[in-house]
């Protein structure tokens, strides 16, 4: 942890590359600052991030798009677990 970042209250996602999740309702989500996909099937998606793994479970999960910065997922979201 960098104390300057804490003192200046700078956003952690910018300074440390911490993952950022935006969930829009039950059916849509955008994940930023992920590193790679570990596992993907229609009921779960496990992503690797700097702070550990994120597991998203649901039904009919579909990756709308993904690039080096962010990815958009669609489907019926049920759980988000930080592993």
């Amino acid at each position, binding site marked *: 942890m960098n104390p300057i970042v804490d003192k200046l209250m700078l956003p952690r996602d910018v300074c440390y590359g911490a993952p950022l999740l935006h969930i829009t309702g039950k059916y849509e989500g955008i994940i930023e600052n992920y590193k*790679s996909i570990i596992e993907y099937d229609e009921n779960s998606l496990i992503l690797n991030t700097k702070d550990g793994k994120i597991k998203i479970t649901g039904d009919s999960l579909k990756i709308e798009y993904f690039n080096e910065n962010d990815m958009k997922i669609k489907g019926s979201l049920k759980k988000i677990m930080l592993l």
Partner: protein
Amino acid sequence: MEYIYRWIRGYIIISISGINKERFLNLCNNHKMKIWNICHQRDNSITLYIAVENIGKILDLRHKTYCKIKILKKYGLHFIFKKYKKRYLFIPGICICMLIVWIMSIYVWNIAVDGNKKITEDRIVKALKTENVSFGMRCKDVNGSKIELYLRKKFTDITWVSVELKGTRLIIHIKENNDREYHQNNTAPCDIVAEKPAYIESIVTRSGTPLIKTGEDVKKGDILVSGIVNIYGDSGELLSQDYVSADASVYGKVVYPYRDEMSMKYNEKQYSGRKRIAFTFKIGNHNLNLTGFPFGYEKYDIIADYSQLYLFTNYYLPVYRIKYNYREYEEVEKEYTDDEISELMKSRLAYFLGKLEEKGVQNIKNNVTIEIAGEKCISKGNIIAVEEIGKRQIINSSQQMEGNNDNERD
């Protein structure tokens, strides 16, 4: 917008199967390939959309990840061009077609008349032809105001004309005058004269000097209401003569002699049931017969149905499709019964009376009798009708001059 951009560039749908599917996706991401719509399938494969320029790269990744890749569908302009690459004449064909359509659109291929009741479309089209406004003329040569002026002059019953050019269609909107008394120069001095011999039933004069009374017989051409109004002084001498446009409603009894004759024998068409349809295309003045003539029919009816081909509502082409219906028949000589022929004669008389009524004739009475004489049936008699018999007749300038000279002499 992005969808259009992707479609122009081209994209494919691929299916990936194998144990390292996720690694394949990560490698795609590392190589900055554009992929979207990643979907896991029931058969444990993944389908995804990928831009066409990355096809070469994914083949390398396939070896690294030991995945099986199957191309499911190809979309975009890139593939359309590839598909029609060998069809050299396809694009020139489209260009020629567009050129023909453009050339066709320069000319007028259909003249439609809208709003006419009394004046037939055929009369208007024929009248326009004398003014060089016809089928096949160039659209830019259509002079709307000139056509409007011409039609108003040619047909005095037309009160309003508007010419509209829509696509290759020239539409002439007209409004007819329904007032019988309407005349363009109705302010000019005129008399009202008898149109036909009649017995005067009633006269209502609005302007002018009435010269007849109710109950008088008049001959054709007799002046009923004069447009000359004499102005007398206090001592009864004629001071001057005023010329007005006579206006009156003069109703008279008119006798129409009626005679109709029919033979008792007639030929009835008995259709054999054999019929044939033939199609012909008419391009300009040339007929293009496609099915040939129905030989073998001795006597037949032909019903021709013309329909002009068009691309859109107002884009007519100079091509007509003609559908001929040939129906074979045999002529059988028959004779009417007395009842049949009298019914037929009555219906013919009713038709004649109906036509008279359409002309504005009222209170029709008739003493028509039907007689059967030998092989003929004759219906004859008189039809007595009350109708307006006045007709305007302009007082010509020489008459007016004479009248003025007389006044001066007086």
